[in-house]
């Protein structure tokens, strides 16, 4: 019986010869990740279990990205727990102050996560790395503690769902629109416990940024992991970054899938997910007149340089509507620097945008752009649950950088064609 890419990667991290969906396995972990919200719990559990040294100081990476620069006294205390642990353990890859970026943009950019890897992260958007052809999934703090201790984690091998993308993308349609459309079709639990494997002729024309965005949001459909078969695009991205070996995997032609979803991307227009679920999607032509108070362009979903380029292309020579607060958050210091060198920051400043340092900040209602009762935001982020960006009476509309930028100018939700 053939195997999927997900099954093969998992198999090669065990001593098993055969492995298929449904099996419960213990697997070796290549990279274990935590952040300033989840790591303090994990560190506490690690120490309670008598842990002295992490299993491998090259393979545990703790990034204080959610509430840094420290947003208040309590989060400062949590970051301090993380920072002291990183120093005490003498971890090889450390990020703080001006080297901090949003973890899921930062790790691939720095070549720390590679194709064929098995990655766990105490953060639900760890699934982002599937874009590289790695198995990556989010877990909780206790799982992270266990991996820091043993280097292994338990998994139930997921069934896979094949998403076949074919056709050419329309103008202004990006990976964000594809994944929002797919979540809209299958629902927020449509891929629960499953691997979402993206294939089809469209994939070859998707850059890494689009693939990261799509893999990032599979958790919003309940999936365990999202995965792309690595190709030339992957190779070009990885070659200039990797400092260790990587491995490309592919699915067998006779691999078994729980289901297949066929998506003709040429029929998809820019998408907007209405409150309060990422599955509540509509095409931009069906949005109607919705006034907005804030636009956020950033996050692990859409804070990459390609995203900022699209936004800047639309904002060039324009200003955010007087009623709109535009917040731009480059996801990593390297992206920030590239945006500066390419003149994008100048364009954003001329558009009256606030430029935030790299942080998860407002995406999860942390800080750097919290909404009041009754306020509405268009955000390139990943979740629009009740109260996600602030008051429970506020609303978040999820969209691509193109739609977010156009909406900022117009003061209402709209695509670039309305400008």
């Amino acid at each position, binding site marked *: 019986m053939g195997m999927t890419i997900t099954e093969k990667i998992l198999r090669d991290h065990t001593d098993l010869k055969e492995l298929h969906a449904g099996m*419960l396995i213990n697997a070796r972990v290549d990279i274990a990740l935590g952040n300033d*919200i*989840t790591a*303090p*719990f994990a560190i*506490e*559990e690690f120490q*309670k*279990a*008598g842990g002295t040294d992490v299993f491998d100081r090259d393979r545990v990476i703790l990034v204080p990205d*959610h*509430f840094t620069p420290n*947003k*208040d006294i*309590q*989060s400062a205390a*949590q970051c301090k727990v993380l920072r002291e642990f990183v120093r005490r353990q003498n971890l090889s890859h450390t990020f703080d102050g001006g080297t901090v970026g949003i973890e899921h943009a930062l790790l691939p950019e720095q070549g720390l996560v590679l194709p064929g890897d098995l990655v766990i*992260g*105490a*953060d*639900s958007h*760890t699934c982002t790395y599937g874009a590289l052809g790695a198995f990556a999934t*989010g*877990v*909780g*703090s*206790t*799982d992270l*503690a*266990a991996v820091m*201790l*043993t280097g292994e984690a*338990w998994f139930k091998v997921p069934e896979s769902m094949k998403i076949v993308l074919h056709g050419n993308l329309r103008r202004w349609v990006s990976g964000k629109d594809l994944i929002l459309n797919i979540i809209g079709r299958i629902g*927020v*639990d449509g891929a*629960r*416990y499953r691997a979402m494997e993206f294939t089809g002729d469209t994939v070859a024309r998707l850059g890494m940024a689009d693939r990261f965005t799509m893999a990032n949001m599979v*958790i919003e459909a*309940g999936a*365990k992991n999202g995965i792309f078969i690595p190709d030339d695009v992957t190779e070009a991205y990885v070659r200039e970054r990797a400092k260790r070996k990587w491995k490309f995997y592919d699915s067998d032609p006779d691999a078994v899938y729980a289901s297949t979803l066929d998506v003709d991307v040429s029929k998809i227009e820019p998408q907007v997910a209405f409150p309060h*679920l990422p599955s509540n999607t509509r095409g931009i032509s069906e949005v109607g007149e919705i006034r907005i108070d804030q636009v956020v362009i950033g996050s692990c979903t859409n804070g990459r340089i390609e995203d900022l380029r699209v936004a800047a292309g639309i904002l060039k020579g324009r200003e955010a509507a007087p009623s709109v607060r535009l917040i731009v958050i480059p996801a990593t210091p390297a992206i920030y620097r590239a945006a500066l060198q390419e003149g994008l920051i100048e364009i954003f400043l001329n558009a009256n945008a606030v430029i935030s340092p790299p942080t998860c900040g407002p995406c*999860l*209602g*942390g800080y750097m752009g919290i909404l009041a009762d009754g306020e509405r935001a268009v955000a390139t982020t990943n*979740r629009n*649950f*009740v*109260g*996600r960006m602030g008051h*429970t009476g506020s609303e978040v509309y999820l969209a691509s950088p193109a739609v977010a930028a156009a909406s900022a100018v117009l003061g209402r939700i709209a695509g670039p064609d309305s400008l």
Partner: protein
Amino acid sequence: MKFRGKVWKFGDNIDTDAIIPARYLTTTDPAELARHCMEDLDAEFAAKVGADDIIVAGENFGCGSSREHAPIAIKAAGIACVVARSFARIFYRNAFNMGLPIFESAELWDRVAGGQHIEVDGDAGKIIIVGSEAQPLSIEPIPPFMQELIRDGGLMRHIALKKQHAQGRK
């Protein structure tokens, strides 16, 4: 594993931001997290909920973030167990790892009202609605490995016991 308590009923897709809003993730103190459990859905939930009470929910309970603060807040609020139609996978994993008993039942949600009392028998795989003449409702069996985790008192304790066992054999 038997639980008897008052039902607090919630719908489908109860996300981790609803269970414990991110604005409270600046602490890891269970008592403080418990004070804000379900706050955005029911501001008085933490004050009203009693020890041994049970949450009954619909599909995909605990979707969203990987924050373990969610099962911790529920447990620290006094909730004995959660019975849902289904659970989001990271929440499911977290609950077993840190020792919050959870059960899947396709039938219970439609049969029970908030405020009623139920008896959940994890060993026999049955739920009884107290005071009802109806047949006991079935719950999905818990996979053996998960039973082991609960029996050992969570993942970290399970690992410690395995290590002790391995050393004992040497």
